[in-house]
């Protein structure tokens, strides 16, 4: 059973992370959701429950957990947002290139937050995992044509948002 569990983690772990990350664009929270999702899977396996479409089940659980995490009081009233953390100064002067990169990163993050969560999931799987369209469609339960269309629209929308922010995409 442990071998099967490890196999499922190796096969779908990254997709689960990408879905969890797409919800709140928080890598640490995505790691927590990933671990919790697989713990739930393990408990299911211990009970002897049969999960026919493991990837679909895992992604559904990860989505729900990421949603719960985003709604949690800690997240809402949380201590300090990543943007504020990023803007905290240091005595050590960072190289200009690093500064530009971190600024661009914040702007991309803000842009991504303006598009729909499903589009973020598609972008996350496409660019974090380099999944082909067919695999994204299978993972998210969408038609490949729909994924193509959403991917194209999301890219265009994001490019427009970044343009409006005054970001020059290199």
């Amino acid at each position, binding site marked *: 059973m442990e071998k099967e569990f490890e196999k499922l983690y190796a096969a779908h772990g990254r997709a689960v992370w990408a879905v969890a990350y797409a919800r709140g664009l928080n890598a640490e929270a995505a790691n927590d959701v990933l671990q919790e999702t697989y713990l739930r899977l393990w408990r299911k396996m211990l009970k002897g429950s049969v999960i026919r479409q493991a990837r679909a089940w895992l992604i559904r659980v990860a989505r729900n957990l990421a949603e719960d995490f985003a709604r949690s009081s800690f997240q809402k009233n949380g201590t300090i947002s990543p943007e504020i953390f990023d803007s905290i100064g240091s005595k050590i002067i960072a190289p200009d290139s690093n500064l530009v990169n971190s600024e661009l*990163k914040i702007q991309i993050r803000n842009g991504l937050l303006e598009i729909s969560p499903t589009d973020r999931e598609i972008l996350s799987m496409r660019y974090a995992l380099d999944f082909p369209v067919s695999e994204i469609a299978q993972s998210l339960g969408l038609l490949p044509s729909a994924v193509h269309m959403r991917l194209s629209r999301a890219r265009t929308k994001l490019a427009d948002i970044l343009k409006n922010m005054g970001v020059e995409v290199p």
Partner: protein
Amino acid sequence: MTKENNAPIDNVLRQYFHQEMPKPFPKAPLVFHKPFNRFSGVSARLALAASLLILFGMGLLWPRYSTNNTINFKSIPSSASDDKRHRLPLYDSKDGSKALTTPIAK
């Protein structure tokens, strides 16, 4: 947006998501079916065997070197008539003034 125009935003997004992806990717949660399954492997078994052996050895050797538990069988009286049996001092608890006596001294 054409494919050629997509290239810059593609690169930016790829770079962004790759930076966000944890490296190395986290391992699977540690889940074990049996409670003592974690104590496995040759070294763990050897350590367990060695500690049990030490405990067993201590159990055998400890009484031999402890003076409190030593019984000297040679000093035990050979028969009931042996006067050694009555040489222990006796003390009359009712009369505290009396000195310690032994049956032989009376």
